[in-house]
């Protein structure tokens, strides 16, 4: 098959570019640990909010736990149209791991200025970790359509000095 020499060079460059880009991405993901959510646990969405048997059924003020100084975990339940809890206060420099699940439809969970962005799917637990080095207010926002009140669904993280 005849391929024009210029086009052949161009194809070779294209393939090289693709390989370089892909390598850069994989290095960032695995050497620098910029990770996407991976399977953590499966739950029954109809029972996941039940007190006593599920961390998403615990009293609201117990769903954010301090594991060690500046190390937290938060169990957040997504439902139409709220996150519970929707207010979290942590000191500057804290690392917090979010465990989010839904008891009804699909939702999303995104925090601007962090690498946190995940689908929240009934039956699954979505988890990612972020460190907050700058004081201020951050919003976690539902970014998947979940009904007519979707635009009101968000929560706030207050990072204190």
């Amino acid at each position, binding site marked *: *098959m*005849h*391929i*024009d020499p210029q*086009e052949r060079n*161009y194809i070779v460059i*294209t*393939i090289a570019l*693709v390989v370089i*880009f*892909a390598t850069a*991405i*994989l290095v*960032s*993901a695995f050497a620098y640990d*910029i*990770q*996407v959510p*991976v*399977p*953590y646990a*499966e739950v*029954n*969405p*109809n029972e996941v909010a039940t007190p006593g048997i599920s961390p998403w059924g615990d009293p609201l003020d117990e769903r954010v736990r301090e594991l060690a100084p500046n190390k937290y975990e938060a169990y957040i339940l997504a439902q*139409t*149209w709220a996150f519970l809890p929707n207010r979290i206060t942590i000191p500057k420099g804290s690392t917090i791991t979010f465990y989010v699940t839904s008891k*009804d*439809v*699909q939702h999303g969970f*995104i*925090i*601007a*200025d962090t*690498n*946190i*962005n*995940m*689908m*929240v*799917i*009934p*039956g*699954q*637990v*979505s*988890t990612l970790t972020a460190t907050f080095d700058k004081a201020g207010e951050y*919003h976690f*926002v*539902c*970014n*998947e*359509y979940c*009904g*007519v*009140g*979707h*635009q*009101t669904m*968000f929560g706030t993280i207050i990072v204190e000095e």
Partner: protein
Amino acid sequence: MYKKTDKLTGWYLFVGMVSLFIGGSLGPLQKLEHVGINLYRALNSIGLASYYQGLTIHAVLNALVWTTFFIVGFFTFIIPRSLEKELVWPKVQWLSFILMVIGLVMAAIPILMNLATVLFTFYPPLMASPFFYIGLVLVVVGSWVGGYGFYATLVSWRKEHKGEKTPFIALAANITMVMWQIATLGVATELLVFVIPWSFGLIEGTDPQLNRTFFWFTGHPLVYFWLLPAYISWYAMIPKQVGGKMFSEPLARLVFWLFLAMSIPVGLHHQFVDPGVPEGWKVVHFALTFGLFIPSMITAFSVIASMEIGGRANGGTGLFSWIRKLPWGDPSFTAQNLAMILFAFGGIGGLTNASYNLNLAIHNTMWVPGHFHLTVGSAVTLTFFGITYWLVPKLANKPLFSRKMGLWQAWTWFIGMVLMSNGLHVIGLNFSVPRRTMLGVAPYASSTWQPQLIEAAIGGIILGISGLLYYANMIGTVAQKKQLEEPIEMPVAEQYHEEKIPAWLDNWKPWFAITVLLILVAYGPILFDMLSNIQLTSPGFKPW
């Protein structure tokens, strides 16, 4: 010749264009809502219940109905001409159209009654009226039936022309239909096995993560189903329209075969941030998606080279000044060329979206509608507009109503889309502003978003005006009394180098085998895993 099926093409285009008119008119309303001008209250009186019902109508009609009707209609027109042979089963082609229309009506009624405000992705456990899903299935099945007529015509042509190579346009169109046929098995499984029985109450629960996976099995190749007909026009028709030649036909064929093999096993790149999909499979689909970048880049080279041949044949010289010698006074060319330019940016953004963990930065933000209005909203839609600038006059046997208006339409679409898409990309990337959201009343909305939201809204209004110019021109064309003086023929480019096509580029078997193999490798284990751990736990919800 072709009289009967040309009439059918006219009907497909008519239904597609009316759908786009209705769906498209909601676009500017969405943009205005984002900057706090809510026109939905006024539309309550005519039965529009919410922003989200409007958004469902916008995306279903624009992205699913307009595209599918246009494509099947376009293929009904180009395949017989490319093969110089009537379609062998004209009745089957009509059956295809009738099924698609029944499906459309069946899906439209629940949408309009606010019984299916689930957006065009209908993610369970949002539960629409069963008739919405059945309607969608019928539209897809109708398009399959159309495909069967095309395949039969191709088979019959090959029997009559043993040893000859299949003409490019007919081959490319058939590859597109076969790809679509295989790809839609995913959504067909989702709907027929799970969602429809569940929406009728025959099974109590469904598995949202599994359903999403079946959806995106179809969802990504869906975008290539939209794009490949535009590529056919760019590869094989535009060179003729600019007075050039097709730069390298063998590579063009290779590109279509690669799209057949690689469009499907990449769907998980829409699920990079899904909790229930294992990391390894995300990486596999990421790598395959990057492979898919290569045929698109080859297309860019060949199409530009073909146009350059034309520009130089018209007396153009210099490294770039041949561009001025392209037929910029022809709305069909101008619309399609501007579509290609917008697609270059869509492609770059697409590579970002597909970049595994980079997806964290933009998933489900306004960046995403910024991206796909460049692709399906421009590369595809503006190219289809460009095609109709010769196809509708041909079908109606009347000249285009106004060439000037067509040029204005193309340029306003381009400018409007640059503004809207830029605004949406920027707020999505910088501020993580969510998509599919009534931003005008969101309590967390920030004033820092305003400059780009206003930019995007201005773009949206310009796009709306562009749409009106298009429809005025089309109605003017069909309604006028003037008849065509010279007949219009389908533009078919000649090859630049007259050369033999290697046999493996005209042989379905190896490509078919590679396609199936790649799907089995990329989807087999993960689907097997999900099916063996299936959790049919989610009841339906109707929170609208």
